[in-house]
């Protein structure tokens, strides 16, 4: 089975759906964060796949975007985790159902 773009895209879509499902259905903030990270991974996978199967170029553009995204995702995860810790310290919970202070 040769690796084709389609295969990558299907894998990426599946990964995204898993991430989305996690982000939407889990109640724990950290799991939501993990879900988001999974979705990001799906996106990165897409970038690399499109770079690999797109028109041949010498520049590693897709890979560079993916590496940036991973770096940003790391930073984001750090910020998100610290926010969750702060929220936990304040409300003594990480259940997002109870965190509705932003309600309009």
């Amino acid at each position, binding site marked *: 089975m040769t690796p084709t773009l389609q295969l990558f895209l299907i894998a990426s879509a599946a990964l995204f759906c898993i991430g989305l499902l996690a*982000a*939407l259905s889990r109640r724990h903030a950290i799991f*939501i964060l993990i879900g988001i990270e999974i979705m990001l991974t799906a996106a990165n996978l897409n970038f690399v796949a499109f770079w690999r199967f797109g028109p041949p170029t010498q520049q590693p553009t897709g890979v560079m975007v993916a590496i940036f995204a991973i770096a940003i995702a790391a930073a984001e995860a750090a910020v998100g985790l610290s926010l969750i810790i702060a929220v936990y310290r304040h409300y003594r919970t990480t259940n997002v159902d109870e*965190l*509705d202070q*932003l*309600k*309009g």
Partner: protein
Amino acid sequence: MNPWIVTNLWLIPAIPLAASLSILSFNNARRKTAAAIAIVGQIVALTMSILAFLPTLSAPGFRAGHNFIWFTFGEQALRLGWVLDPLTAAMLLMITFVSLCIFVFSIGYMAADKNFTRFFAYLSFFSAAMLGVVIANSLLLLFVCWELVGLASYLLIGFWIHKPSAAAAAKKAFITTRIGDLGFFLGLVWLYHGSGTLLFYDGGRGCLENAALLALGGSATSIALLIFCGAVGKSGQFPLHVWLPDAMEGPTPVSALIHAATMVAAGVFLVARVYPIFSLGAINDVTPSLTVVVWIGVVTGLMAALIAATQSDIKRILAYSTVSQLGLMMVSLGVGGVAAGIMHLLAHGFFKALLFLGSGSVIHGCHDEQDIRKMGGLRRLMPVTFITYAIGMMALSGVPLFFCGAWTKEEILHATSHWPKSQAPHYLIMLGVVLTAAYMTRQMIYVFFGNPRAASEHAHESPPVMTRPLVALGFCTIFLGVVLTPAWPWLHDYLNGETARFDLTRLIQPMLFVSLALVIAGIGLGVLMYRRVALQDRHRNVELDPLESAQPFLFRFLENKMWLDELYEESFILWSRTAARLSDWMDHYVWDGLVRGFGSLGQLFGIFTKGVDERAINAGVDESVGGARGLGRLMSAAHSGQIQTYLGAVAIGMVALLILYAWLA
């Protein structure tokens, strides 16, 4: 070279005017000074009038004048001036002399009045204004003085201003004469427009001289008639005569002045002065304007004589007799007898002043009673007054040979008999002469004959200061009678600018006998009708006038002055009053209403825009604010704060986008 008097003729009116002004500045306490100044002023004016009279005798048709520039407008100079000719000179003499007598008389008559000084100031002013009319060599100057005469008469008729009737009479006099003056003013303006000058005589360029008259052409008739309107007003001709009898509300010397020397004479004088305009284009001495003058004169003369025959106020009888005599003069002027008319005017000035002063003396003697039916028997109580009054009465009636009125009347009759247009005026005037004699006889009988009645029982002769002017005037009346004999018609020819010749035969002519017969008929008629009044008992007032018992309706008709006053009151006065009220109403409701209407339109627009503002714009904004708030509430409900809801929404949105994309592709 003009004599000194010609260049200084203006002094004649100026001196009484100065006297008047200086008297006005006095207070009432300085009576003697006031009277003295007025009389001295009049004496000076009289002396100067005599001086002015002398050069006019030097040559027939003497005429000299002096013109000066009053003001210049644009490039045109408006000139005024004065003129000395026989007409002026004769009028000057008459006016100054008669006024002097009246002034002296007033000292006695007004002795008890508290506004004595003011009275003399007004008298002087009156005489000054009239002298101004006479010397004027410009229709404008004449008009100016003419109006001042009107002002003076207003002041004097209303002299007893606390009496409402006097104030009303003064107002009536001023307004009635002003109606005539409007015509005069238009005529003046027209004449100025037509001839380019208002000077009468200006070395061939004046408006009464040939060149200018020719330029007038066809408009002369209208101009003459308009000017005549002024004369009708001032001289009390029909239909503007109504003010004259009411003018009796003034003190008697004023009546004398108005009726003899000044005011009413002005109208006749005016017609005589501008006679060339009237007679322009005459065929046989007849022009349309002169014909109007004749008929107005005839109507006035007869109507006034009839009314005079029924009045019971001693002064009113004289007033109507004046109106009637003025009508006579107008007729004379109209038929071409200018000299005859002016002669009658002069003679009338003397004897009418005499009669009025005599009546003043009677009123004074009878303690301010004016009703002749309450007098009687004054012949013995007031002998001087009686004799002088009788002289005046005979002159007015026209008793021939010794009294001046006779000659002049005869002249007038003579003139009318030659009028080519119609003989009717001639006979109607004869009727007037008979009536005059009759009503004067009636008056004499009531006042002086028979036994004293209520008012005359305690009558007394007036003081010398009042009787002496009477004597002087009486003397003049007789003297003029001698001077004016037709045997030596110098005054007639003097006025006409001819040289007189002595001719005794002219004394005996048919007209003399006609007029003698007329006078005898008149006096006889009067004696016949009123004989019984003289024979009545003491203490009985006359209940019924003989004429009244004979013809009650006619008598009442005439006694009420033919109800002309009432007629005017109900017509012209009412109409103009209504017009006044109407224009006030129009102002309030129509013109102002229009303005208010426009204002209301603006207001309506305001209300409309206010409505639009409140209902549409304001409400719209309010509504949209409400809508926005509702939307906000709706939206905020979606903001549950549940992060997963948000995410879900994002996901749904993304799916929707994907589907949209797929569908579009």
